[in-house]
């Protein structure tokens, strides 16, 4: 696992500085800043229209900010402004060092292609050229996300929603990314399926020392998975801090409202 001293000396992996995005007069996102370190899980929590999805798009380089910047520390140790990356570099990053888990797994998978090919695609994209090894690696990953390996040749069209989502996670993690973006990964799933998925994500994050930015409207998900949380409303960050701090000792009116709205178990 990790060397404690090294952990504390780590440089930030992802840095957002004064990020904002406006569409004409509408400010979707205003002045968001934070640093994310390796192995940290940051939850961005907010209700619809809070700007959290816009923020995630900017952080993952899919949307150009109107103001501010996002920087990422590449594998060679150099921190680069995302907008300074060429398109080829950014696409490569997206396929190797980063993962992006969509809310709707159909958007993050090739539905007509077998599960094994879905997981193996990123490997083939970085030059793996041995069918046997690709298949074995894909098979390993299916086991890790608790999908029966007998289904490796089935297309995700034949999978249930929870299985598709787990397959999406395997597809993203096969290249051992350091940073994973998740957009409401449990949205639309049955409660028991959600629970299983969250447990899986939690153990994979710990095991692989992943840094994660997870967007969710569900405070329980934030409490379970994240170290830090950022509460957003109307495009602004209302409150930020350690997850247990913000959820146990909410300071801002909006945060207090959100926390008090959780149904007791």
């Amino acid at each position, binding site marked *: *696992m990790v060397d*404690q001293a090294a952990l504390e000396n780590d440089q930030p992996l992802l840095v957002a500085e004064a990020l904002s995005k406006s569409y004409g007069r509408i400010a979707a996102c205003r002045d968001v800043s934070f640093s994310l370190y390796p192995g940290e899980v940051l939850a961005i929590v907010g209700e619809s229209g809070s700007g959290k999805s816009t923020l995630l798009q900017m952080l993952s380089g899919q949307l150009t900010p109107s103001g501010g910047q996002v920087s990422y520390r590449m594998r060679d140790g150099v921190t680069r402004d995302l907008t300074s990356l060429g398109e080829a570099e950014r696409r490569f990053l997206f396929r190797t060092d980063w993962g992006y888990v969509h809310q709707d797994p159909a958007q993050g998978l090739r539905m007509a292609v077998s599960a094994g090919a879905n997981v193996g695609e990123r490997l083939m994209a970085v030059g793996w050229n041995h069918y046997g090894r690709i298949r074995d690696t894909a098979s390993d990953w299916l086991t890790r996300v608790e999908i029966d390996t007998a289904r490796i040749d089935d297309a995700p069209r034949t999978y249930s929603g929870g299985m598709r989502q787990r397959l999406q996670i395997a597809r993203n993690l096969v290249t051992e990314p350091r940073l994973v973006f998740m957009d409401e990964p449990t949205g639309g799933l049955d409660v028991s399926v959600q629970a299983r998925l969250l447990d899986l994500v939690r153990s994979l994050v710990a095991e692989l020392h992943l840094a994660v930015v997870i967007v969710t409207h569900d405070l329980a998900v934030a409490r379970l998975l994240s170290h830090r949380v950022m509460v957003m409303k109307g495009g602004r960050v209302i409150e930020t801090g350690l997850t247990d701090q913000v959820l*146990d000792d909410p*300071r801002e009116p909006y945060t207090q409202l959100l926390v008090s709205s959780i149904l007791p178990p």
Partner: protein
Amino acid sequence: MTAMIEIADAKKTFTMHLQGGIELPVVSGVTFNVNPGECVVLSGPSGAGKSLILKMIFGNYRCDSGRIGIRHRGAVVDLATAEPRQVLNIRRSTIGYVSQFLRAVPRVATIDVVAEPLIVNGMARADAQARAGELLHRLNIPERLWQLPPATFSGGEQQRVNIARGFISDLPILLLDEPTASLDAANRAVVVALVAEKKRQGVAMVAIVHDDEIRHLIADRIVDVTSFAAAA
């Protein structure tokens, strides 16, 4: 500073925005030290702010002003102004917290709940589970329960799992919120013994105990929290 914990003039007021912005000052001027190997017990009536102070030391509740000095890896860090990342590091390697009620991630087996603090710090799973097993034995949790998540256990059993988890690693500071509250005499004795062992290892502890007898057995000093009551 040789003390492990040095709190100076800490203050906490709750603002209830949902209730029209009522302000509830709870504590102010909180000042005391805790040295290695000593156990300070916070005393005072219910609602006086004992648990609150404990949570402030853990960084769970933020304080409005004042200083919470923690000796972390040889240097002194003010928890009140520390970066979230620092607080996480301090929790990982310096301060442990045994809450009043077990708060565990659902669906995780008891043995893993207890072993987790060791695994997170790099110990191999098998070794960590072995240590966890020893503690669970001492706290009289039968082995047949180890693979079950603790959510279905009795209050007393849950609390003993909580204690095992809190005591398993070698953190130099331990915060104990009512560690013996739901326990029978035999298990109370086990906890007292565990606390004594920690003292011999030089661990600094802050505890809240209602039971007079236990308090006499473990307290080196008593700090009366009512002296920190904030003016309403």
